[in-house]
């Protein structure tokens, strides 16, 4: 029932696969979503796109074919992402495939696989992830949401925040405390599924971000009841499951895609402003160019290492931090080079230039906060370099 009936592309040569996906994208990818000023697909748009991928046989590149995925190795997954970037595809979060699906495949029961994977594959069901809480951001283990067993149900109370795409999602998986007496904060946490974002006790309160978008939300759980079968893996082992989510694919958060896009806009801007021959501004762009060049080199080499299976936590932390810091820096350069045009809402009043540079700048801000803030990445890397600091 789950099996992928499309061609097995894992056996193609890398180049053949690349050309196949490229051809498909070039004939299929909607023009209106190319080189997006809107950064991410939401809701119905995302569903439409996932279904297109599914119909084309290009859905869920990392999932095994037996679960309906493409069964691609990391190298082909990278090619897949490169081609999406090449066509200028809009990003979509796809939490259902990359996080929930991968976890269910690894840790889920057969029933969970049967129930959840098909609707992720065809795009019918969009998921969001409930990890962060108002007082548990970088320090995730201090989360306070509880799930108390009552018969064959868990009753969830608490709140999650920064839940990306929550306003557009059908289901949520979350971490909640199921053992309040565990000796360490990482213990006694379970990973749970709520099957309906609209079920009784659930409230989703949109949060508007600095760029005026309402992509994330605070989610409130007020005596929300779920069956015990909605625990992923074992009770009180949610922390381990969450850590295991950070597989090879976390490399994609270190991808230079956003930095690439921002640099392309920077080049267009400086040219439209007629400043591309002004040495002093060109020097700023040259710095951004070299930053990007080196980030891309590092990413390519870390990918090689990941494919060889030798990338370690320090390496992933390094590339994540470098990618987000570089994205941020290049967006800073964009604003600096734009001078008086920088703060324009929408786009600057410059003939033939329609990029929203302010949005690039604003959207870059949280890139060093989400997905493990730069401070957290540095802590991880420092531990690798020096060992842990002494307890005092």
């Amino acid at each position, binding site marked *: 029932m789950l099996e992928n009936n499309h061609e097995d592309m894992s056996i193609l040569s890398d180049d053949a696969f690349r050309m196949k996906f490229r051809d498909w994208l070039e004939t299929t990818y909607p023009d209106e979503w190319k080189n997006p000023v809107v950064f991410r697909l939401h809701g119905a748009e995302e569903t439409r796109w996932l279904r297109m991928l599914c119909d084309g046989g290009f859905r869920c590149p990392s999932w095994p074919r037996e679960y309906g995925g493409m069964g691609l190795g990391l190298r082909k997954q990278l090619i897949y992402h490169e081609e999406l970037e090449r066509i200028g595809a809009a990003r979509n979060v796809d939490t259902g495939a990359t996080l929930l699906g991968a976890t269910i495949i690894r840790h889920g029961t057969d029933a969970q696989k049967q129930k959840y994977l098909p609707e992720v594959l065809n795009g019918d069901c969009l998921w969001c992830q409930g990890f*962060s809480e108002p*007082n548990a*951001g*970088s*320090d995730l283990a*201090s989360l306070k949401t509880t799930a108390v067993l009552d018969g064959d149900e868990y009753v969830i109370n608490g709140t999650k*925040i*920064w839940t990306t795409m929550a306003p557009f999602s059908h289901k949520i998986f979350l971490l909640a405390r199921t053992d309040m007496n565990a000796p360490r904060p990482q213990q006694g946490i379970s990973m749970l599924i709520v099957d309906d974002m609209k079920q009784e006790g659930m409230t989703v309160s949109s*949060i*508007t*971000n*600095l760029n*005026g978008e309402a992509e994330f939300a605070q989610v409130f759980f007020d005596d929300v009841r779920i069956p015990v079968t909605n625990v992923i893996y074992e009770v009180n082992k949610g922390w381990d499951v969450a850590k295991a989510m950070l597989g090879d694919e976390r490399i994609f958060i270190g991808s230079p895609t956003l930095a690439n896009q921002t640099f392309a806009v920077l080049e267009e801007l400086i040219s439209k*402003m007629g*400043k591309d021959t002004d040495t*002093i*501004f060109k020097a*700023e762009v040259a710095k951004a160019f070299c930053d990007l060049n080196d980030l891309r080199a590092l990413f390519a080499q870390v990918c090689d290492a990941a494919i060889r299976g030798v990338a370690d936590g320090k390496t992933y932390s390094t590339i994540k931090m470098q990618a987000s810091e570089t994205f941020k820096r290049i967006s*800073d350069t964009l*604003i*600096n080079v*734009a*001078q*008086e*045009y*920088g*703060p*324009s*809402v*929408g786009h*600057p*009043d410059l003939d033939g230039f329609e990029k929203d540079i*302010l949005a690039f*700048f604003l959207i870059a*801000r*949280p890139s*060093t*906060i*989400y997905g493990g*803030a*730069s*401070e957290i990445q*540095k802590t991880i890397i420092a531990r690798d370099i020096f060992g842990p600091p002494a307890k005092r």
Partner: protein
Amino acid sequence: MVWRHDNEMQRMLRDSIEAHVSANHSTDRVRECREMRAGFDPQEWRAMADLGWTGVLLSEENGGTGLPLSEALPLAEVVGRNLIPEPFVASAIMAATVLNAADNKVSQVIAEPLADGSRVITLAFQEQTGMKGATVPSVTCKNGKLVGNKLFVPAWSDITDLLVTCILDGDLAIVFIPGNAEGLAASPAKMSDGSLMTTLEFSGVAVEPENILLQGQPALDALNLAIANGTLALCAQMEGLATAAFEITVDYMKSRVQFNQPISDFQANRFTMVDLNGEIELGGASWRQALLNLDENRFEAARVSISAAKARCSEMVLAVTKASIQYHGGIGFTEEADIGLYLKAALRLSPWLGGAVYHRMAAYDMYREGQVDAGK
């Protein structure tokens, strides 16, 4: 910054302002103003006028109090600190400087509604990005008709009138143009802080002879002084803004607990904030030194040090507000958090009247020119 102090007049002014601001201003009002067409509230402009803000620099003949710039700058700091959206620097500093220089019957007629807050006056002089004082305008006034475009004009609104630089008989001139003049087309663009930056197109706007305020060297001197005063006031405004953002962030960091300690306890965070504090101190020192040079008529040195100050303050205000967002974590990226208002205001102020990259080079170029001149 205990170690800096106001003089008597500055302290009086600051106290009166702060009393008014704490009674009448809030970040709620900042948000409301962002939604208004002009990005500020004409009512509040009039209230500020009643307190003497709009006439602070205007000479007594022009209906103002004629205070020196140094006494007026605490106002700019308070404007920055509280994100006050009314166009204090553009109008009460820059336009007022030109009006003072004009010093004739017409300037009094123009100045009066500025002093009483019924009108906003703004100086339209810029025609390209970046700037290093007065440049030769392409806007011309021929046969009593003004033709050409001005860019990046601040403070545009229904109650705004204009002082426009142009070439008249081969000379620089500054002319008065009512905001509703025939042949004037305005294309305002909304900025991150809700204010407008406007492109003005003059296609044969009539200039009455009595509305030619200044011409030749006096016009050039007035324009240069207006830019100098405006740049210094803008520096003071940015210092105020950065200081407030810094304090808000310090308070947040002391209250935000992660890993069982306030994030203000993490040494790396502390040191970064110390570095930013140093930038604020340098910015504050830099514009005060420039002000001293201007006050004491060291014009060559003033030009150099104003550019240096603008470079430092422009960079500093962005550095402080960007770090403030980072230290606020996810909260900092929400529309709801006040700290984002500071970032968006910093984005608007930092490049206005020339950004850091530009002014740093300008400062050194002018210093070298001065040295070469001196060496002759």
